[in-house]
């Protein structure tokens, strides 16, 4: 705060990936929340729906997990569903869980509350996680979710998915001037954020699990350069997902590519990198790049 003018502060924040991420989250949120109102008031329905299925003109997007669920319960392949799933699946396949960290309205709200709390005190924004569970839980959640869906025969996630509910409540409010009781789920998710950052996203979001699974071998990863790391652990405290990039966990399947750690690292030991092969091969890869891929070496330096 001291020694920096307002303009300088803005300039330095523009250089941060997370400023842009927040901007994109905000824009996505505005579209999701604002569209029903536009729709209701002026009957402009070029865009319809929210993150269960989103229609922009003739481009249809269907969320992979919800699409899978209806296919499983209806036992019927519908071309529009499959085609709609292509874009998100491709996105997750190449970039990992970027839907979660760059588009999801729940992440926007969590990020916003984090920012508001951070305004009160820095400690609150990057607070310690009070509850930590084994990260593997998310796979059990996904499996349980699909099993329950199969057993009771109704797709489950489509009606309690928090990101979907945000859009639905906006729509309910725009069209019928009511908020439904399901909003409790959204509130609960945000409430658990106070105990552990992104508690729901980390351990209990089946959609996040699906996207993580699809993006297991993703092309966009956070690369950790051991030689540059001065072991300050700044990245570990900043990571909203409770991942420790300082011990090379950033390329694990649980990282959602938010780049909080990249922004934080004082020595630029962490960077967004295209086309890496995962933690296990990192060391081999490093030695290989120095021989083969010289231009990549330049970018990491």
């Amino acid at each position: 705060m001291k020694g920096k003018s307002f303009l300088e502060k803005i300039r330095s924040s523009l250089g941060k990936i997370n400023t842009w991420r927040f901007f994109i989250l905000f824009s996505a949120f505005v579209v999701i929340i604002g569209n029903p109102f536009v729709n209701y008031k002026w009957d402009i329905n070029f865009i319809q729906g929210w993150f269960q299925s989103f229609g922009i003109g003739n481009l249809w997007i269907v969320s992979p997990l919800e699409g899978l669920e209806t296919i499983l319960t209806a036992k019927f392949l519908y071309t529009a569903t499959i085609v709609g799933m292509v874009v998100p699946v491709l996105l997750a396949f190449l970039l990992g869980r970027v839907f979660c960290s760059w588009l999801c309205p729940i992440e926007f709200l969590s990020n916003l509350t984090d920012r508001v709390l951070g305004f009160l005190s820095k400690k609150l924004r990057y607070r310690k996680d009070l509850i930590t569970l084994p990260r593997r839980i998310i796979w059990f959640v996904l499996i349980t979710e699909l099993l329950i869906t199969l057993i009771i025969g109704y797709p489950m996630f489509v009606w309690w998915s928090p990101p979907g509910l945000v859009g639905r409540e906006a729509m309910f409010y725009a069209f019928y001037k009511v908020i439904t009781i399901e909003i409790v789920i959204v509130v609960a998710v945000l409430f658990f954020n106070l105990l552990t950052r992104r508690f729901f996203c980390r351990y209990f979001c089946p959609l996040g699990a699906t996207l993580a699974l699809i993006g297991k071998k993703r092309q966009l990863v956070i690369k950790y350069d051991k030689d540059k790391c001065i072991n300050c652990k700044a990245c570990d405290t900043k990571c909203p997902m409770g991942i420790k990039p300082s011990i090379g966990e950033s390329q694990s399947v649980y990282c959602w590519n938010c780049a909080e750690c990249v922004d934080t690292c004082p020595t630029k030991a962490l960077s967004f990198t295209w086309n890496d092969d995962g933690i296990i091969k990192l060391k081999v890869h490093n030695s290989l790049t120095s021989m083969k891929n010289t231009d990549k070496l330049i970018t990491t330096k």
Partner: protein
Amino acid sequence: MRKFTRREAIKVTLGSFLAGIFSSCDLSDLKNPKTMIKTPIKTNILRPPGAVPEEEFAKKCIRCGRCGEVCPYHCIKYFDVKSGGVFSGTPYINVMEVPCYLCMKCVYVCPTGALVPCDKDEVRMGVAVINREACVSWQQEKTGLMCKTCFNVCPFAGIAIKIDHDFRPYIVEEYCTGCGICAYSCIADQYPENNGKKAITIEPVKWKKIKKVKLEDIKKS
């Protein structure tokens, strides 16, 4: 005056936020848990046009709200958990509030095939049933009126609804789409003896092609 500590300020804000959220939810018609898995589709509460049979519908519908957002008449509404149980988020049309005008926009945006693209005249959302006790034309001896409102408003007048030689309307069930325009416009509720009851109601029916509609399905309720 005592100054608020930061912790208190957070508590108060959070508390009032939660209170606001909860008090804005209307719980008055919360469903009995046992009925949460029973379909809320009933007389005058119908699925949008092109809907697959009710047993299939909630399995296919992804609850994306796109059908309701394109409907120019805003006739599609959605159940929530308190009125629809596991059917929450699925669309319905209450023909007494706004009937469907068969513009056929909604069926073309459904991403999952819960609403199947079809033509206007293939729609079978339900079937109109005339209560002859309440219809002013059927009671013309008593009322002295010969109302033809339902006939006039029906998009398939003369096909789905016909008028007999005494100017009394009757429904041709094979061709009725169940759009509910007739029920919505019926004037019988204005007639004092009917206590605000309409003479036409729309009973739900499975969506099928015209030829395959079985009258037993229609008449069972």
